[in-house]
């Protein structure tokens, strides 16, 4: 039954489940194609955060003498760069997912939510590789993190993923109509990088600003990563709660907005 829909429409998550094989193939395609015909392949997944870490260590750690909560600066930076790289990549990829898949949107029906979702999920293997390097670094500098720390990491990755997807849903849908978004995203990512405690510790801020700051969900993710893997005084629970709430709102509103404007994608794109 095909009828014009009006106003807000349900998310139809059951439909997403029906199309899970398509989701799987979209992720598989992105992952397969990403490093085809490159010399060093998946090593790129490690080199990017690693080089950024070196640059940060030299400029912020050595030259600017940035505090790092008593942790070795390279470790301090890399523990943040691993989730950040995943997030930034997921955000950029999902924002352009609809425009990049124009031929799919205009030629075949699939729930369009799958496209940004697949792009975010497609970053997981890269995250896995760089996470292994991170574990190696932790092992080198101190001792391996606890099992509960690793479980926390899983939850934090989920949070980073949900944030990237939530923002990605908004931006990808807007990008269909306004290609301005493709210029906004790199810029936004850069600003966001500085609004997240990657090169510096969030302990530089004092309450209540610190909780307001935590409305940036990546603050929760990054602080959580450092706490869960490198150890710290107390879990950043308030920060995490604020981050999770902000993410939840972004994701749910993004999903409804996306579904609402989805019906005109094929016409406007």
């Amino acid at each position: 039954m095909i009828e014009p829909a009006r106003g807000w429409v349900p998310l139809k998550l059951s439909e997403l489940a029906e199309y899970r094989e398509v989701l799987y193939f979209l992720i598989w395609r992105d992952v397969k194609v990403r490093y085809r015909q490159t010399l060093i392949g998946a090593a790129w997944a490690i080199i990017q955060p690693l080089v950024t870490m070196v640059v940060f260590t030299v400029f912020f750690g050595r030259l600017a003498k940035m505090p790092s909560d008593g942790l070795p600066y390279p470790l301090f930076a890399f523990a943040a760069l691993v989730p950040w790289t995943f997030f930034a990549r997921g955000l950029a990829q999902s924002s352009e997912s609809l425009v990049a898949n124009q031929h799919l949107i205009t030629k075949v029906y699939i729930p369009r939510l799958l496209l940004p979702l697949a792009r975010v999920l497609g970053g997981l293997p890269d995250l896995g590789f760089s996470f292994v390097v991170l574990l190696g670094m932790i092992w080198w500098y101190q001792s391996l993190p606890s099992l509960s720390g690793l479980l926390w990491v899983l939850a934090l990755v989920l949070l980073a993923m949900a944030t990237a997807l939530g923002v990605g849903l908004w931006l990808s849908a807007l990008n269909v109509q306004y290609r301005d978004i493709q210029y906004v995203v790199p810029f936004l990512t850069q600003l966001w990088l500085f609004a997240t405690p990657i090169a510096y510790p969030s302990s530089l801020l004092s309450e209540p600003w610190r909780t307001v700051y935590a409305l940036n969900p990546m603050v929760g993710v990054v602080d959580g990563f450092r706490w869960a893997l490198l150890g710290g005084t107390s879990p950043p629970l308030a920060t995490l709660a604020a981050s999770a709430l902000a993410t939840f709102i972004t994701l749910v509103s993004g999903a409804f907005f996306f579904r609402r404007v989805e019906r005109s994608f094929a016409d406007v794109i």
Partner: protein
Amino acid sequence: MPEFSVRVKDLAKYYSIGTRPRPGEAQLREILAAIFLPGLRKLSRRGAQTWSAQNLPGAAAPTDDHIWALRGVSFDVPRGQILGIIGPNGAGKSTLLKILSRITEPTEGRAELCGRIASLLEVGVGFHPELTGRENIYLSGALLGMKKTEIRRNLDEIIAFAEVEKFVDTPVKRYSSGMYVRLAFAVAAHLESEILIVDEVLAVGDSAFQRKCINKMEDVRQHGRTILFVSHNMAVIARLCERAILISGGVVQKDGPSPEVVGAYLLSHLRTSSERSWPDLATAPGDEIARLRRLRVVDELGRAHDTVDIRKPTTIEMTYDVLQSGWVLWPYLLFRNEAGICAFVTRDLDPEWRGRERPVGRFVSTVEIPGNLLAEGVLLVGGGAYSNPPFRIHFYDGDSVAFHINDTHDGDSARGDWQGDDPGVVRPLLPWINVFEGTP
């Protein structure tokens, strides 16, 4: 289970086009304002209009930058029928298929489709140049709605159908365009759906492969599946579909047996019909001696008709007025096919008038074209008259009427059982006699 598999009711689709600032662009500022200012309600209200292309002001009265791509389209397709959809470019055919495939939403009306739908609007949907043939089969198959197990089951068959056995693990960017298209179609051909929606995909590939595709579609039909098929290849439509609809300007112009619809379309496309008359003597083609008044293609009952069975005779009727007596006239008809190739010329050899001076008055000449003479397709007929010697044409109007010759593929025309292209402007049914002489 319902009788029909597709039921379309009053379907309409409204598009905004044009170069003036689109409503969306004008509203970017408003959307941003709504994000940054309190009052998100404003966004949702204005946004609905921008994004859904509905309820736009002036929707009822089309303006320069708005068009109805489809309007009031209704039809039912019974289970197991192949419906051909034809019409000029920009008529709304693809929009219709896109709505039925759920790619875009209708502005008004509704469509009901019963059963699993597979739509094939383009060859190679989802193909990625970096992936190998095998990988692309999985990817494209999944996007077109196949389950993984289904693809795996059909994999060998798909590869064999596409004739790419040797290259199945090569990235498709290294494929020749023919291989690419064959592989893409092979995936689509193995979709197991109750309803198949196909847009102009047979236009690609060499004729051998096209034939294979047509046979595959025949095969699909025999399994009781419903096909909606858009094509510009009228011969294929007439051959493959029992029924066709003609869409033009967003509305269904004609709905009926495909040979008739195809015939009507071809003639309307050529801006000719099976009848043409010149009611005003002064402007009728001709000189002071004779003028052409009417040309018609008529059936055995004398009615104008535009679609002719290739096996049946048809009659051309030419009416002309002789305005000056004392001339020996040779009326003639010239037949041309759509490509402009002259099939033949026939002239009036009626013994009663041959070599005789004609009196002033009206003549109505009829010529019967036998069945099993001309090839399928459109024939354009021009009528004229000359005198000789000295050679002088008194009137001639070329390509003034047309008719469509259709082969129903029943096996008793000159085609026999051949389904592919049959070249030539004539296609006589000739007797063959064979003598078996045994081993020499």
